[in-house]
Structures are given as C-alpha cells and as structure tokens.
C-alpha cells in the first residue's frame, strides 16, 4: 500500500469522547488498518491548533491521504479540506467519518459506539486510498440577483443589493409589493404606523435604478446552478400596459364591478375588478382580475378602456414568460395565516363576531374597510368586551407544534388598540406570555397597567349558547383559568383568534423549483439552524423572512439584509468554486447503447451521432451519479464517488464481517508430493 494515511479522531470535547472511547479507536486504527501512517486523537480538531496538527503532520510525515473522524462533513468538511490544502495536499484526498451525528449522539452504549466508530474509520481509510486529486471549477457569478417575494424581507434584501450597485429582479405575485406588513395599522412595540415606515421603502424599490420590479408575476422554473441560474418568470396578464399607465386611478374609480377582496382586505372589504390592493401600492399600476371583470364574464363594459386618458388598458394581453439570468436567488416568500375554520369549536366562519387576527388588522387600519373603527360584523356596533385567543393552531399537537412567535406581541398591540379606540374590556387567553425581545416585556407591563385582562389557559370553546341571562346574546369563551384553577365562561361581544403563522401553502412546490426542501413544520430548511440560517443546502439559494420560520418585522428585515450581504459578497468576489463532482464517459468503453441518455434531468448527456458514443457536458452535470450507476458497460465514472471508492468503503465498513469466506486461490497449499513426481 503506497499511500501514507493520517487518521485524526476528534473528541469534540465530550460530544464524541463522552460516548466513544476515542483513544481506543485511534489506537486500533493505527495498529490495524492498512496504510495508516499516523493515528492521533485530539480534543477539538476544528480548532486552529487541531488544523495545524494535521497540516504539520502532512508536511513532516509526508502523508498522502487524510481521514478525519469527527462531526458531519456538512459541518466541517470545508475546514479540513482547507487544512489539507494549506499543507499542499489536494483537498479531495480527505475523507471524513461522521462519528458525532451518526454515532456518539445517537448511541447509548459506549462499547457499541466505539465499535461503530472503528467501522466508520475503517471505511474511510479504505475509501480514501482510492481518492484522486480534484480541482474545484471556478465559475463566474452573474451579478444579477432574483428576489422572490416583495414583503418586507424581500424589499430589504432587494434594496440592500441595489444600493450596493447590484441589479435585482424582485418578483411579487400580488399586484403590489408590501406583503403582510402593508396590511397592518400599527407595529409593536413602538406602535409606529406600518404604512409610514413601509411606504418609503416601497417607493424606493419602485424607483430604484437597479431594481427591476416584476409584480403580478410568479416563478415558474429555475435551471442552472450557483453563479448562473436561469429563471423563468410568468408575468401574468395585467390587461394594463405598464409603460403607458400613469396610475391616475380613474379606471378604478369608474369600474362598476365591486368584489370582496380576500387577499389584502382578508375578506373584510371590497375592491374593484380593476384594482390596486391599496392606495400606496407600488407600482401604482392596477391589474384587471379576469375572474371578476364584466368584460371577461360577458363581453360587455370596457368602461376602464373608454375612460383611460392614456389608452393603457389592453384586454388582449397574454401571460408572458420572462427569462432572466441571475447568479443567486433569495426566497422571501413569507407566510400564510392558519385557517381558523380548522378548529370548529372556536366558531370562526360560524359565529359572526369571531375574527381572525388579519381581519382585525384590517379593521384597525385607518385606510381599511371600517376606516379604523373597531366594530362588530354588523359594521356599526362597537364591542363592549373583546377576548383575544392565543395559540390558535400553534403549540397544538393537532395542528402545529411550534410557537408562532409573534402572536403574544400582536395580541398586546391589539389589546392596546381596542382599549384606545373603544374602551372595551379586553381579555387575552394565553398559554404562556412570551414577549422576549428588546422592549417587548416593557410593552407587556404597559398593557397590564392599561387594564388588559390576562387569563392563563387554553380556550376550550367559543360558543353563543348562553347558560345564564348575562350570557344571552354574547359569545362565551370557555377556558380553564389555570392560575385560579377553575373553569371560566367569559361573555364577550367579539373574539379575535391569533391564528398560527404557517408556511405558504405552495412553499413545497416553490422549494422544489429551486432545489430546497421543507422541514416537518413546513419551513424552508436552512443550511445550519444556528450558524447559517439564511443559506440553504443548495448553493446560491438563500432564504429570508418568515419562509424560514415565524418572524416579526425586525427579524425579517435583519434576515433580508443578511441574505443580501451574502449575495453581495459572492458578486464582489466575482467567481465561485464549484465541486468537481461530475460524471465522465470513457469513450473507449462506451458502446453507444444510449441507456444513459434520458436519465439526466439536466440534459448533460449528449449522444454524438458520428462517434456513436455518449458524452457528459461537465458544465451541466450536477454530479448525482445516476448515469454512473446505470451504465451497463461501466463506461461512466463519477468523480469522488467512483465505484471503486464506494466498494472500498463497503469493504472497510464490513472489516469485521468475515469477508468472502474462501481462501484466495493464491493462498492454497502446494499439491502433495506424489502429484509433482
């Protein structure tokens, strides 16, 4: 065995050493595994001293291969590759054995864990012998960035990048940017007006020279990879020429068709068939909703067209597909509100005066359907008492186990607004109060002082069935007050349900388009939950805002800015190194059977008609290895995941399993003397 292998086993403090006899595994590897020149254990290999240890050994002992048994390669493979490269060893001559996530953290018995560690090390040692030096491929980074979602997180990301001088495509599916924040009246805990702080940012986006704003548009498809994505964006027919429209609003005024606005007004108000969701919309250009427009319904009307002073209405517009080339993509697709009908005992949809938090937000908003007045569903009566129900669909194993994070503060804000606007009695039924950020606790104390009434208990039911005369005509909130230790029935005029913050209903499909996945709860999965919450497992795809998990405005803004900073860094560097894990076809062995041809979803395999062989286009190849596994002639090799590497790893992992069971032909004794006479 010509290779000189260094084996490094990490204690990771007690993370590994607590369950694994690291010294024993190291000793065993050094004494038993072929090719191992040095085997060492170390407290924290990822520390600079640990890396230096590996680097020095490579140089002093002429190591040609390195095995690091430590945490998951997803965490520190880059670190140790760099350590190898610093010592002049090609970084692909490293193999990691994942003995923390896959062994020490999941195994009870120390003995079993140590044995498993030995196997994983044996597998890595056997595999690394077959590693070949590889060079990452530099790829230029297209300076354009695609931001999906024009809520506050997407707006922030777009502005940060554009202000740095980098061009941005901002895609929003609704007619205007602004997202959920544009629906709110006040924001907690400072109570500043949402519109006052949001609209300047929105108009900045609308006017920015580096931002190409694509509203009423949706992402169709993404191909390519980091540095060079190609995105297809569906520009839904607006039936209004964006170049010509001045946003005067005359068409909206004159449109005879009024429909309930289920999106922006959360069903609380109306809009026209031609509309902008709200007065401060960016862009100001309206859209015609063909589902409600009289022309599309029965080929009559066209009032807007007749009255438009600039002839901007175009009923013949079709959806268009815009193809853009971008280097990176930021997803800031936001959230959807839990469908409160799913909890029938809370009465939403059945009992008129049960509202969702979004409905209530619209009601509070001065430009909303009630002009900011808090009233019952009849539109006139002010409530004398209101109960806010927390954790509707959150912290509930039937719906969402997680805490939606923002509802406690939302409830406090609403409590304040109700008290201010109506003087009604306000109850909040909560499981735990969690006002856990800067100035939040103070806001809670303020509401306590303002007289908001807090009942600690999960609401069992909201009903209109009275048991006593005072309950007549009221909504009764049935709740166990766990501080008093007794059941309470609270009669109120209005109930507001703090519905859970949920992932967008179509997030899974969106994720698939860009190659990222969702957690059990539905949120997009970040590269690392603590150290890299904005990157994803797919290089060049970032996530910001509530699509990564429930978030309030400051956190969404911070994440938007952070994602932009990551992208800006990449653009300013100009190139990105991509893994050279690609397939190659040995044309001598290829018989041109063409079985591999339709296996590649990236069309990376071409059949050369003249030579009668297939060839892999390395630029398009993403390295999945499916064609390698499929080639009947074994003519395709997968770099860094070659058949011999994997088979060597299998043998190494099964070092203790008895192997072939038969002596090799060469080991056989000579025939008896008589036979050789």
């Amino acid at each position, binding site marked *: 065995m010509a290779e000189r292998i260094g084996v490094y086993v990490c204690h990771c403090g007690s993370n590994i050493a607590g369950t694994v006899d690291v010294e024993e595994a190291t000793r065993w590897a050094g004494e038993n595994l072929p090719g191992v020149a040095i085997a060492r254990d170390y407290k924290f290999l990822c520390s600079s001293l640990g890396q230096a240890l590996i680097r020095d050994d490579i140089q002093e002992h002429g190591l040609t291969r390195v095995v690091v048994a430590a945490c998951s390669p997803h965490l520190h493979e880059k670190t140790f590759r760099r350590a190898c490269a610093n010592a002049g060893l090609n970084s692909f001559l490293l193999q990691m054995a994942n003995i923390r*996530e896959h062994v020490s953290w999941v195994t009870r018995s120390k003995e079993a864990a140590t044995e498993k560690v030995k196997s994983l090390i044996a597998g890595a040692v056997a595999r690394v012998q077959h590693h070949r030096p590889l060079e990452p491929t530099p790829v230029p980074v297209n300076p354009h960035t695609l931001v999906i979602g024009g809520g506050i997180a997407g707006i922030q990301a777009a502005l940060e990048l554009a202000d740095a001088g980098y061009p941005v495509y901002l895609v929003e599916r609704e007619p205007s940017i602004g997202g959920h924040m544009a629906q709110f009246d006040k924001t907690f805990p400072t109570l500043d007006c949402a519109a006052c702080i949001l609209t300047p940012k929105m108009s900045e986006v609308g006017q920015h020279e580096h931002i190409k704003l694509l509203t009423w548009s949706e992402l169709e498809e993404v191909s390519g990879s980091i540095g060079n994505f190609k995105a297809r964006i569906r520009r839904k027919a607006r039936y209004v020429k964006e170049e010509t429209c001045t946003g005067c609003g005359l068409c909206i005024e004159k449109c005879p068709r009024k429909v309930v606005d289920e999106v922006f007004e959360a069903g609380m108000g109306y809009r026209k068939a031609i509309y902008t969701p709200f007065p401060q919309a960016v862009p100001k250009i309206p859209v015609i909703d063909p589902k409600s427009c009289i022309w599309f319904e029965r080929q009559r009307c066209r009032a807007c067209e007749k009255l438009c002073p600039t002839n901007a209405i175009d009923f013949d517009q079709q959806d268009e597909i815009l193809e853009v080339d971008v280097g990176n993509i930021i997803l800031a697709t936001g959230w959807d509100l839990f469908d409160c009908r799913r909890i029938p005992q809370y009465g939403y949809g059945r009992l008129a005066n049960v509202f969702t938090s979004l409905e209530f937000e619209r009601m509070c908003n001065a430009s909303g359907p009630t002009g900011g007045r808090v009233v019952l569903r009849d539109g006139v009566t002010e409530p004398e008492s209101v109960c806010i129900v927390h954790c509707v669909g959150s912290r509930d194993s039937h719906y969402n186990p997680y805490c939606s994070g923002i509802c406690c503060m939302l409830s406090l804000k609403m409590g304040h607004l109700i008290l201010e606007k109506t003087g009604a009695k306000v109850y909040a039924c909560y499981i735990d109060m969690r006002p856990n950020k800067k100035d939040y606790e103070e806001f809670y104390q303020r509401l306590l002082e303002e007289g908001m009434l807090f009942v600690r208990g999960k609401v069992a039911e909201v009903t209109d069935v009275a048991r006593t005369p005072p309950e007549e005509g009221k909504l009764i909130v049935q709740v166990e007050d766990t501080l008093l230790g007794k059941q309470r029935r609270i009669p109120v005029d209005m109930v507001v349900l703090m519905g859970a913050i949920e992932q967008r209903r179509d997030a899974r499909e969106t994720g698939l388009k860009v190659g990222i996945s969702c957690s059990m*709860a539905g949120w997009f999965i970040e590269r690392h939950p603590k150290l890299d919450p904005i990157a994803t497992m797919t290089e060049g795809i970032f996530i910001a805002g509530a699509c990564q998990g429930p978030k309030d405005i400051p956190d969404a803004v911070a994440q938007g800015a952070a994602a932009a900073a990551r992208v800006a860094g990449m653009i300013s560097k100009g190139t990105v190194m991509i893994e050279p894990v690609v397939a190659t076809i040995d044309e001598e062995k290829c018989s041109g059977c063409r079985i591999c041809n339709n296996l590649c979803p990236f069309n990376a395999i071409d059949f050369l008609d003249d030579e009668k062989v297939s060839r892999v286009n390395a630029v398009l190849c993403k390295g*999945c290895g*499916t064609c390698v*596994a499929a080639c009947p002639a074994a003519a395709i090799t997968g770099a860094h995941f070659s058949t011999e590497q*994997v088979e060597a790893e*299998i043998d190494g992992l099964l070092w203790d399993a008895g192997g072939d069971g038969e002596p090799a032909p060469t080991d056989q004794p000579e025939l008896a003397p008589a036979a050789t006479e």
Partner: protein
Amino acid sequence: MERERFEPRIIGFFCNWCSYRAADGAGTARVKYAPNVRVIRLMCSGRVDPSFVLKALASGADGVLIAGCHPGECHYIEQNYKTMRRYAMLTQTLRALGISERRVRLVWASAAEGTQLAAAVDEMVEDLRLLGPLHWSANLREEDHEAAFEHILHEHEQAMEVTR
C-alpha cells in the same frame, strides 16, 4: 443475556441532501437508535448501483438500507424514481436468490425526518434480528471440501503405486 443478541450489520446508502441530513438531524436532536447501520454518503440515491448492494451482502452485511428523498422531492428533480425502478428490479432478483426484501430496504426520508429515519433503522434492526444473520460466506463453504480433496490426493497416490 442482552449481549447474546444477534447484532445485524447493515450498510446504509444515504442521499447527501435528505436522508444523510436527516441522520445528522437525528444526531443533533440526540435521538437514540440502534448502532447497526454503517452509512455511506452518496450524492443521490440514484447513485446506488445494484452491485453496491450485492457487494455489501457478499462482504458480510446482513442488510442494506437505501434512503432517498421522497418521490417528487429529489434534489436532482427525479432521480429517486430511477432508484425506485432499480430497487424493484434488484429485490425481485434477490428474492429469486433466496434473499428477502426485508434485508434490502428502500425508505424515503426528507432532511427533516431524522426521528422517522431513526425509527426506520430501529425497526429494520429488530426485523433482521428475527430473520437472522445472512452470513453469505458460510453459504459458499463446501462442507466436505477439505476431506474431498484429501481423498482425491490419496487416490492418486495409490494409482501411482499401481503403475509402478
């Protein structure tokens, strides 16, 4: 008595994007499960060559666990469907060779499903305990091989004497 249990050796082929991360996630969450699976990381379950499975069984594994992204959620768009086809082809062949698909399993696990993956491992280990070791090398041993060969040598020695 606990130590007397049969501990099956299982080789795992896990997709880098989903199941390998799920196993990482199980680790981070400290979910305890049977230590019997030795995992090989591949970029995609589509890289699993039937010969890897055969090699593992021939080299002494009692079982093989292939884990990939859920159908429709492949990181490489649709390659796990190719895994599905290959797996069906392989298990039908293995059945004809007397090897049950209980030993060679294909499971889908997204990156979020660490707990489910750990449970699938536990379940497989328990099932293999019932099924018993595969121990392929024993299957190739000729019981009377040495004696038979001795016999031949002896016979030829005698034959030589007769010719003299």
